[in-house]
């Protein structure tokens, strides 16, 4: 599809009215809104349409619907006795496995504990990303120039990662910020992909977390000799994989370089 300028305006207008434009674009768009009368008129029209749709009367849920659902589930349950029996058998097997598992060695327990800590790390990294999206801008230093962002990190942190601009690969460098994970200040690099913001948090190596979704954000994590990287974004995981490849190709660990 060829997106004409008009179509693109229309998309931005919609995304802006839905509060889904990222802070940088929203800012640009607000400036245009203030200056362009026809855009402003279309925006007002969109808002009045929203008002009209939202004020449509909604049917109340029938009072007995919940009761009917509950009774149909009770019927469903009794017709499923055989299935439930099978399940309880497999539950016994699992319970037995759990008892067996209770005598696992302390080293495995350590691993589980570390795993728990790592998931804590994942939550903190996502929290940093969310906080940054709520802030007026997702970065402390705004620059698409790696030679500005890297020294900014170096001046503040004991170790700082490479800061490649991946605009050619579709991930434009937006800037950097310092997040706190556990008690450690760490470098986070911010990239933009289409209308999406991606935070790449860099930790000491050996802290990678599993690929997962937290609060609607996808995480992808990998390590090289210097850092563990955790990328957080609302992009689909396939895009995060693309990002990882682009980043790894552009920022090889110094030893390999």
């Amino acid at each position, binding site marked *: 599809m060829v997106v004409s300028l008009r179509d693109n305006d229309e998309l931005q207008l919609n*995304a802006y009215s*839905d509060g889904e434009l990222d802070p940088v674009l929203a800012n640009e768009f607000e400036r245009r809104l203030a200056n362009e009368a026809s855009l402003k008129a279309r925006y007002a029209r969109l808002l009045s349409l929203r008002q009209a749709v939202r004020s449509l009367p909604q*049917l109340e849920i029938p009072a007995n619907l919940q009761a009917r659902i509950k009774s149909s589930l009770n019927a469903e349950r009794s017709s499923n006795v055989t299935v439930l029996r099978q399940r309880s058998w497999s539950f016994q097997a699992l319970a037995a496995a759990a008892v067996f598992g209770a005598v696992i060695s302390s080293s495995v327990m350590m691993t589980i504990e570390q795993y728990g800590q790592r998931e804590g790390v994942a939550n903190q990294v996502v929290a940093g990303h969310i906080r940054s999206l709520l802030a007026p801008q997702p970065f402390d230093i705004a620059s698409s120039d790696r030679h500005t962002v890297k020294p900014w990190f170096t001046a503040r942190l004991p170790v700082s990662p490479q800061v490649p601009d991946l605009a050619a690969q579709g991930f434009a460098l937006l800037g950097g910020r310092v997040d706190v994970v556990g008690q450690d200040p760490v470098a986070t690099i911010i990239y933009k992909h289409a209308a999406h913001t991606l935070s790449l948090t860099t930790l000491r190596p050996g802290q990678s977390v599993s690929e997962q*979704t937290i609060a609607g954000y996808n995480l992808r994590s990998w390590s090289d000799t210097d850092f563990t990287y955790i990328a957080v974004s609302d992009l689909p995981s396939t895009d995060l994989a693309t990002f990882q490849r682009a980043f790894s190709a552009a920022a090889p660990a110094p030893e390999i370089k």
Partner: protein
Amino acid sequence: MSVLVVQNKDERAAFDEVFLPHLPEAYRLAQWLAGNASDAEDIVQEAALRAFRGIKNFGAVNARAWSLTIVRNTAFSWLTKNKPRTVVFLNDLSAVEQQELEYEGLHGARIETPEEIALFKADTEEVQKALAQLPVQFREVIVLREINQMNYRDIAEITNAPIGTVMSRLSRGRQLLIALLGDRR
């Protein structure tokens, strides 16, 4: 370990916790997709049963989106089965027709929304009719956005479409609504 947790938990309790709180919203969505109250009741009841049977698949991430996804899918399969003539799905159309509908409006023509259509008085009946008239792909994103007030990400998950498609459908759907409401003046 997570397997144990799910097995252990009473499925009925899980259902009560995950699906039931969203029943009023589920009903509202079903009503807009089906177009009337009695079909909506049938759809929600069937969706509840599906949710109960599938409660083990709930990933403990977003109960609301998970529940509404089931309602939306149930509504579509229910409508296909019981009211096949009332719904046209994009997937049933040829690639060219899909393209036309998604990007060029209802009848293959560009949607023109002249500037003079400025503001809408909240004429409830007209708006209701216009919304009911929208092709279901546009109607569902508008209902999810405006009535259920979901964000793009959740709408994408529920409608099983990329966020970009959600954005273009919302934009197109709203333009169609504006055009429909403008025609009635």
